[in-house]
Structures are given as structure tokens and as C-alpha cells.
């Protein structure tokens, strides 16, 4: 759906993005991850046909965004950062206007109604945009991106400035839309990518740091290993585990192939183990079977949260916090 080749953009002597080459297949939700100022918005503006690249090419649906700009723009629903809208217009009126300039001549009202519904803003359709809350404005921006039913949605930091409830709601909406649209969304929030995306492109200081399916990128950066948290209930072995959880855990994990113990901590009645396992294979299952065999209760097995975050930090260094 998107193909870029050595895409470069300079502003005077400053290089915003340099030699970006990546591709995004049709029908996927892709996260565009990078610290603030990495060049995400510049890249998205080039893809959306707003900024011409200094050099290199970008194709959307096989169409060059510079030489075939008008046709390429028809394939894209673009929602810019901080969602600029016309405050003096009513929501429905604004979407009718947007549908009209996007070339929807027939059944415009039906298209507007559908976009209102998909973005969950039907209830504010007759209201002035200037009076709406931030969350609603964000969704009106999404409705605008959706109104012409474009195959590709480009969203620049779509959840920026929303409260936690609104963010969850927005993510659910994106997952639903992913069935029909290819979505390319930028963010500097790792959890967002882990929550909604299947693929990721990581950019740092104007260069591609990593790109591909989420699992692959994670595996590549962690050397094909992942950390898993196992929560155990020691039951009758309570005393031994309480006295020295590390030794007890070591004895348990040592015999399992492909597994190394990272840490073991007692917390209340339970013990939390963090083990590092190879990405593929069934070492974790072996461990669970072993626990059950040893008469230990297994309360939870889960991947350690924020593993992509570690990838991100590894790639972008301390500046990732900025």
C-alpha cells in the first residue's frame, strides 16, 4: 500500500528525514514509532501529498505522490497532528464540505452518515465544531479521514491529548477500522503500538531504525528471546520458597532447556519469576508442566509488559524519553 524509496526531506540546511526506505502491505495496521522530533510528521505529510520530498520517491497504492498527486490523494484519508478543523462550522456541514471536495457527488448524505457513525460522532452532528471537547474533535477528524472511504488511513498522533478512557475508545475504533482500511499511524507511545498494531516502523533522527512485523522486530532486537513472568503459589513448599526464593527458583528452572532465570521475588503468598526464553519452542510450557509436577500452583503466565519499549529504548537511546 505504501512504498518509499530513499525518501529525503530537508528544510534549508536541516535534514528532517533521510533516505527512508520501507514498505507497508495492504490491510495491516502499522505503527510509526519514534521520539518527538524524529521526523514522523514530516514523513506523513510527504505521504499525504502535502510536502514534496527533496529527493527519493513515495508511492501510495502504486501511485507516485508527487507526479500522480491527485490520484494518490484520493486513496488517502489523512488526519494531521492536533486535528485542525473549522470551528465556525457544524459537524455535519463540515463533513459534507469535506465529502464534496473529496469528489463524492452521489449519495453524499449517506457517506456523511456512515462516517459519523464509524467515528461515533452522530450525537454531535448538529453542533458547532468550536464547542466540542477535544475527544469529539479528534473523532470528527477521524470521520473526515473516513468520509470518502479511502483504502489507506494516515493518522498523525491520533490519541495525543486524550484522556485514558478516550484513548481506549479510540484504539477500539482503530481495531474495527483495520478490517476495512490499511492504517498507518504515528505515535511516540509504545503501548499504543503494542495494543493495536501488527507491524511497526521505528524511526530515529530521520533514519529508519527498524521495520517489519511487530514480533519480528521485537525478536530481532532481543536476539530472539523474550521475558515471561510466571506467578507461582508454593502451597506446601511455602517455607522453602519464602526462605530463599532465588535458590528454589534456580532449582526449578535449571533443568528446563532454553530457559534462564532472570529474577525471583516473593510477594505475599505468591512468588514472581521472570524467565528469559527463546522466542520459539515450548520451554515455558515445560516449565509450567514441571511446576505442576512439583505440586506448585501456577497462577499466571504472561509476557513481560513493555518489551517493545525496551526495543525502542535500545534503538533510540536515552533520547527516547524526551
Amino acid at each position, binding site marked *: 500500500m505504501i512504498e518509499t524509496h530513499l525518501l529525503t526531506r530537508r528544510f534549508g540546511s536541516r535534514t528532517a528525514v533521510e533516505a527512508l526506505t520501507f514498505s507497508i502491505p495492504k490491510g495491516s495496521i502499522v505503527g510509526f514509532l519514534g521520539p518527538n522530533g524524529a521526523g514522523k510528521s514530516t514523513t506523513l505529510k510527504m505521504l499525504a501529498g502535502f510536502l514534496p520530498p527533496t529527493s527519493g520517491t513515495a508511492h501510495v497504492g502504486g501511485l507516485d505522490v508527487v507526479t500522480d498527486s491527485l490520484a494518490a490523494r484520493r486513496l488517502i484519508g489523512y488526519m*494531521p497532528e492536533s486535528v485542525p478543523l473549522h470551528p*465556525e*462550522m457544524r459537524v455535519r456541514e463540515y463533513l459534507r464540505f*469535506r465529502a*464534496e*471536495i*473529496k469528489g463524492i457527488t452521489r449519495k453524499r448524505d449517506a457517506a456523511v452518515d456512515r462516517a459519523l457513525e464509524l467515528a461515533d460522532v452522530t450525537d454531535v452532528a448538529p453542533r458547532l465544531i468550536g464547542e466540542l471537547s477535544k475527544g469529539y474533535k479528534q473523532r470528527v477528524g477521524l470521520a473526515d479521514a473516513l468520509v470518502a472511504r479511502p483504502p489507506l488511513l494516515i493518522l498523525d498522533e491520533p490519541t495525543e491529548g486524550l484522556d485514558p478512557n478516550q484513548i481506549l475508545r479510540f484504539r477500539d475504533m482503530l481495531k474495527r477500522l483495520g478490517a476495512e482500511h490499511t492504517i498507518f499511524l504515528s505515535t511516540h507511545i509504545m503501548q499504543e503500538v503494542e495494543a493495536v498494531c501488527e507491524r511497526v516502523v521505528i524511526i530515529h533522527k530521520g533514519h529508519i531504525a527498524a521495520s517489519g512485523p511487530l514480533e519480528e522486530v521485537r525478536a530481532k532486537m532481543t536476539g530472539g528471546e523474550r521475558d515471561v513472568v510466571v506467578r507461582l503459589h508454593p502451597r506446601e513448599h511455602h517455607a522453602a520458597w519464602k526462605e530463599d526464593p532465588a535458590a528454589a527458583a534456580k532449582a526449578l528452572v535449571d533443568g528446563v532447556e532454553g530457559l534462564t532465570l532472570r529474577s525471583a521475588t516473593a510477594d505475599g503468598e505468591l512468588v514472581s519469576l521472570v524467565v528469559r526464553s527463546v522466542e520459539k519452542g515450548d520451554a515455558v510450557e515445560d516449565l509450567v508442566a514441571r511446576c505442576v509436577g512439583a505440586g506448585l500452583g501456577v497462577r499466571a503466565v504472561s509476557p513481560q509488559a513493555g518489551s517493545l519499549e525496551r526495543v525502542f529504548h535500545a534503538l533510540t537511546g536515552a533520547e527516547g524519553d524526551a
Partner: protein
Amino acid sequence: MRTAWAIYKRELIGTFCSPLAYVVMVAFLVFNGVVFWFFMSMTADNPALTGSRSPLQMFFGSTILSVLTLLVFSPATTMRTFAEERRSRTFETLFTAPVTDVEVVAGKYFGSMTFYAALWAPTLLYALVVKRYGPVDWGALASGYAGMLLIGSAFVALGVLMSAIARSQVVAYMLTFMAIGGVMFALGLGSYVFQEESTRQFFSYVNLWEHMEHFSVGLIDSRALVYYGSVSLCSLALATRTLSVRRES
């Protein structure tokens, strides 16, 4: 052209939903009301001074008062066109929709022309006032309005160009004011300065004062049509070019 029509309609909403439009309209009517009252009382008090000219002819004619009207009010009709879109960043959503620069400029230009025409529309009542006290030369009146629209077309086009260049409405206003005042007026003054016939004729061809005088007495010169038409088209073409250049920097 359907897209230009959509942008035109949005432009009207943007203009007439803003309080600024009404401030400009009221100021325009107050100013011209005073001007018209002045011409009326002048013709009544000193018929000898005004000669055969009616108050309406003076209203559209080449007096400093009518020139001031054009100079002060026409930049106000265009200052928000692009500068406001740039400030609110809707510029970005506009140009990522499948629209061409020409369609956008056309929509904005006709939107501003409509505002300009709306400024002048209430002055039609002046003719009805004059009619109560004497005859009205309807032909000359029509030509007076045609002239104002023609000159306005050039000024509005210049204003659209300046708004495409400027970053804010105030700067857009100032640039348009300077373009109209500095170029369009000053150029015409050459016809009073130069003695040599060919030079004098050239400046007389672009002399706004002379054009206004002709329009007010019912004379529509095709040379003026060509002049203002060319200024409008050149300005709009430059505005189109400016939009694409501004995005590249």
C-alpha cells in the same frame, strides 16, 4: 469546478460567520453614508461648483473619498482567505484533499468577490434617495457599479495573492494596502507627471482616477476592461504559483 464551488461555499460560511465581516460592512456603510451625504449637500448648496454632475456621479467618480473607500476596504475582503487557513492549520487538511491549487484559488477569489459585492449592495439605496429629488441616470449608475466591480476584481485578486504570501491576516491586509496604494494608484499618477505624449498615454491607460471618472459617467472603455482583467488573472496565476512554492519551503 465542483470542488471550486464547494470551496466557494465554505469561504462564504467562513466570512459571514465571522464578526469581522459585519464590522467591515458597518464601517463601509458609515463611511460611504457620510461621503454620500457630503456630495448631496454639496450639490444642494453649491450647484455652480458641481456643475452638471449628480451626487451619484461624484460618488462613483474620481474623488479622493471614493479612492479611499477602495484602498481601505478592499484589502479587508481578502485578508483572511489563505492567511487564516494557514494560522488555523486547515491549510494542511485542504491541500491533502484531492484539490488542485487552481480550484482553491478560484473558490477563494469568488468568495471574496461576493463579499466585496455585498459591501456595495446596500449603496443601491442611494439611487432611490436621489430619485426622490430628481432624475437618476440609470445607465451611468449601472456603469458606475460595473466599474467598481471591475476595479474591485483586480484589487481582490491582488489581495488573494498577498494573503497567499502572508502568514497572518494583518500582514495580508498591509501587503494588499501597499500593493494597491503603492502600485495601482501611484502608477496612474504618471499621466500627470510626464509631458511626453507616448509616456503620458501609457500612464493614462493604467490611471485609476481616469477610469473611475469614465465609469461614473457611463463610459466603459474596453482598454480598462483588458487592464483590470489582466491584473486579476496575473495576480491569481501568481497566487496559484505561490501556494505550491510556499509548501516546498
